[in-house]
């Protein structure tokens, strides 16, 4: 909350000052209405709208870093709030008939606010496209923040299942092959035991980035669970998937990860498996992938 206030001091203070000035102005010119004269329906409608605009503003400022798009959206919402605020004050304070400017204070900010908001949303749209570009190997078409992995910037198992489902349908429609590749670190638990959970987490984050760098634009990487990652490779046959799996395996083996505490080199190795989708559903496909991985793990040398 503290950082939120510090980050957005200017717009919030500005809005408070403007709202207060409006109130002072009305009080100076007009007279308070009696209880009987107040139309409570209007108060509820206009006041409620003002409160909602304020809630939007706060939610917006809380969720976004400061910047041009945030500024535009915040300014637009501020104008909208101000317009509704003056509208509400109108219900409590009787202004002299001659005053025309009060109408301006109530009505004019609304179109300005809406215009600013529209420009803001337009730029938000551009910004979102840029972000989607950055997210390209981690997210496809569909966003659900509840399915994000908590540790790595990837989707988790449930997101993976949904995406495999989509990919299977698309593969069938376009008559293209679809393959999955799994990457699982060898003896990852030993890293957790030896260097601690924090270091284990750091390794997983590094591996997530590394694997993403080694995938193509159309691929999607998710973290299934623990130290097991799964990549969905559209338009890829089994032979090519196997090649990609091998490349990922090499990439992991040549990553020189160093511990945060002592800068000690951690040697990593991974087992991989690749499967091509046949006539199966996501669950069967994942099962085959896991069996392939179990087979690969069994061929590992016994290490003491």
């Amino acid at each position, binding site marked *: 909350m503290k950082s939120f206030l510090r980050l957005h001091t200017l717009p919030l203070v500005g809005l408070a000052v403007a709202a207060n000035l409006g109130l002072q102005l009305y009080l100076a010119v007009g007279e308070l209405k009696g209880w009987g004269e107040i139309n409570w329906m209007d108060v509820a409608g206009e006041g409620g709208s003002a409160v909602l605009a304020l809630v939007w503003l706060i939610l917006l400022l809380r969720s976004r870093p400061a910047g041009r798009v945030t500024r535009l959206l915040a300014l637009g919402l501020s104008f909208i709030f101000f317009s509704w605020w003056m509208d509400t004050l109108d219900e409590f304070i009787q202004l002299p008939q001659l005053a025309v400017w009060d109408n301006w204070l109530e009505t004019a900010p609304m179109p300005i606010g809406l215009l600013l908001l529209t420009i803001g949303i337009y730029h938000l749209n551009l910004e979102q496209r840029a972000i989607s570009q950055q997210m390209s190997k981690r997210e496809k078409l569909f966003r659900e923040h509840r399915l994000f992995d*908590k540790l790595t910037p990837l989707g988790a*198992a*449930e997101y993976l299942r949904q995406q495999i489902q989509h990919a299977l349908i698309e593969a069938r429609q376009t008559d293209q092959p679809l393959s999955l590749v799994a990457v*699982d670190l060898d*003896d990852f*638990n*030993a890293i*957790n*035991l030896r260097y*601690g*959970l*924090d270091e284990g987490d750091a390794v997983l984050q590094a591996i997530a980035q590394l694997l993403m760098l080694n995938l193509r634009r159309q691929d999607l990487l998710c973290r*299934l*669970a*623990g*130290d*097991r990652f799964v990549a969905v490779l559209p338009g890829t046959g089994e032979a090519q998937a196997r090649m990609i799996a091998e490349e990922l395996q090499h990439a992991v083996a040549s990553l020189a990860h160093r511990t945060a505490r002592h800068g000690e080199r951690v040697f990593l190795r991974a087992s991989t498996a690749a499967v091509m989708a046949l006539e199966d559903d996501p669950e069967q496909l*994942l*099962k085959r992938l*896991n*069996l392939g991985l*179990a087979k690969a*793990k*069994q061929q*590992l040398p*016994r*290490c*003491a």
Partner: protein
Amino acid sequence: MTIGYECDTRFIAAHHQPVLLIDLAMSRGIDSHQLLRGTGVFYEDVTVGRAHLSPAQFLALISNASRLLDADDSSFLFGQRLLPGHYGEASHALNHACTLFQALERLQRLRALLSPLLTPRVLLDDKRAYLYWADSCGAADQQRFLAEASMTAVVAMCRQLSGERLPWRFHFSHEKPRYVEQYWVHLSEDLTFDSQLTLMIVPREYLHRPWPNASTTAGQVAEQASLAQLASHTWHCSFLDQLYEYLRANIREPLNLERVAQAFGMSPASFKRKLQKHGTHFQEQLDLARKHVALYLYQIKGYGNEEVAAYLRFNDTTNFRRSFKRWTGIVPSGLRQLFG
């Protein structure tokens, strides 16, 4: 006989199993006060090694931790560090186990120190070794967490001490969870849910393969020392565990609440209260013991319906089949090769 530990016996050193969970939660940024709320201990006491938890308090800690962590892998990450652990002589005894068989035997014998909430039991037939788990103190909602953690612990320990991956197969009495991928990664692909037992199976040939880095003598000494430590408690297992063993040993005798209470040197009323405290009742425990005997006779001894019914002193098979259905939810014929 002296009564085993109960759900409110404060004997689990907070710096043994509980601290692993506390460390896990704190490494994920969870506040220690929130974590220990309702457990009756303070973090300061844990750090100086003074605090002891009862099973019920440990279960409260588990409940807090899994709620606050809100992640599917909590029980597995906790389990990976549980065994052999850092619990003094008992952990040494595991560390110096020469074979899987010896490790499992010690795990069973020293269970009050190594696995106080979930009782491990070992069973062998000519092809396989079975390790099945039973509730020690009335874990209720935390059963699944405990099963996940305990099985992961054994898998991780065997991996670490033997240096090889053992081909474990798993049975769980709970239904298939939404996050089955955690089981794949931390246990294995060979999983059966909605099973009669919480059970792990390994081919018998792995039982007597020598494990590297073990010292026979050091292991024996550590085991003796741990047994002496247990003897000072006057019990070696939990009350429910004791009852189960008594029922299994006397399963062919006529059993009822009064008789068993007398054998435990208690009045039927206080015996009943003690069971109630652990969230169970006499009939449930008796049915559990009889179900396990029946499963043992079918699966391991290869008995037929008549033989099992006769062994358990049922007068006719129809009656037995009805009881069996009540214990397990299936008829005996649906059982064939359940764990085979």
